[in-house]
């Protein structure tokens, strides 16, 4: 499994995808933006390009011929996705903190980058993973449709969450103004978000390892 991860990062994942978290993370400096978009760039750019790369380099056959189990093949790919997602979130979080300090006097129409918001971002990635990973491993080949549906669901979640954050007085109180100072509440949203992310990703992995052995290479 460790060897497979080394393989992914040495030949499968291009260095560009490792720089992307910094590049997209820098968008946190756009004052008062829709910060969900910063993370959605991962789903829009990194995932499609990375999986196109796997396909054009015949990664499936290459990996299959190595003495490794099918379960580990899936596990390594899930790890790659999760590691990149974490890089995107953590770097965006750091830039978000700096951005918060830089612009103290602006009005945030959209979610301000606080812990509660990052909790929602984890849920968004969780939704992306559960659809993308599970759907992709039906064929281990056709990534287009899987990405299309997964990105759609992630964006729908982000859109609805943002809309409710503005429209619903209850949610507005949590994600805007004084609610942001309630550290316990913010931290618990983040923790719940992370828990959902882990749960969804693990379900995705379980479904994928059931589907992948049925694939003919």
């Amino acid at each position, binding site marked *: 499994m460790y060897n497979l991860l080394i393989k992914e990062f040495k030949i499968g994942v291009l260095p560009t995808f490792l720089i992307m978290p910094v590049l997209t993370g820098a968008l946190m400096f756009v004052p008062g933006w829709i910060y969900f978009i910063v993370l959605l760039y991962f789903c829009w750019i990194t995932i499609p390009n990375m999986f196109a790369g796997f396909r054009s380099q015949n990664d499936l056959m290459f990996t299959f011929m190595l*003495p490794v189990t099918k379960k580990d093949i899936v596990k390594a790919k899930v790890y790659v996705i999760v590691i990149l997602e974490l890089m995107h979130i953590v770097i965006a979080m750091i830039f978000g903190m700096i951005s918060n300090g830089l612009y103290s006097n602006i009005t945030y129409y959209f979610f301000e980058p606080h812990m509660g918001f990052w909790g929602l971002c984890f849920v968004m990635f969780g939704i992306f993973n559960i659809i993308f990973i599970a759907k992709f491993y039906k064929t281990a080949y056709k990534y287009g449709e899987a990405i299309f549906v997964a990105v759609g669901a992630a964006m729908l979640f982000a859109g609805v969450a943002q809309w409710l954050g503005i429209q619903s007085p209850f949610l507005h109180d949590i994600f805007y103004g004084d609610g942001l100072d309630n550290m316990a509440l913010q931290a618990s949203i983040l923790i719940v978000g992370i828990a959902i992310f882990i749960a969804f990703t693990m379900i995705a992995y379980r479904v994928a390892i059931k589907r992948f052995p049925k694939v003919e290479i």
Partner: protein
Amino acid sequence: MLALDIRNLNKAYPNFQLQNVSFQLEKGYIMGFIGANGAGKTTTIKSILNMLHIDSGEVLILGKNIAEHEIELKQEIGYAFGDIDFYTRSKIKTLTDVIKKFYKNWNDETYYNYLRRFKLDENKKIAELSTGMKVKYNLALALSHGAKLLVLDEPTSGLDPVARDNLLEIFQELVVDGEVSILFSTHITSDLEKCADYITFIVNGQIVKSSEKEEFIESYRLLNGKESQLEQVKDQLISYKKNSFGFTGLIHSKDFDPSSEINAAIPSLEEIMIYFSKKEDSYV
């Protein structure tokens, strides 16, 4: 001991099926796997490597069932797919560093010996290698992790005659000490005349014959006769072609009566392949 033992392999697709494919390869020999394009060579090879879900049958490699001992056996199998490249933008060095970690019997010394012998430059990218060099690189990898069975799908297709001859010589050297066995599929039959010990011939998903090369060729005769003689043997012929001088046709040696006045010659593998495919056509 058998390096490869395939028993009654069946795999059905909507428009094609492998039917009761069985053949055996003794350890330390080269088997040529021939058949026209689309005859089922690659499907059989993919089944051997457990890439497909076969409907029924068994594949034993070095006495062990591939379906049950896949990971263990992959340590002992080397492969090259002539028409598929992997990670072409990576350097040989990078790719080898990644690959070698997976094999418990990897030997760096052997690897560098083969690189020198095959004149492979570690710093070249896969995309910069010629087709022949790519096959050699795959062989170097396989031999460095101590592969006992080499499964090569069309390794010589797309190579010039010099590169092909060179590769065939390498194949023969590899099997000399009896440890390594090679199964290689091809539609270039002259390759097999040079180096194969056994021939397995597949037509339309079914094995027509699998035997030692001389026996394989000996079991057919190519007849050359006048049109008036055609009627005598027409029913026994596998297939025939008419021309202005008469006919030529392929027949099983056992069906041929040497006392008849028809000229009989020993066919080449290519002729056997052609006449069998003609027979298939006539059924359509």
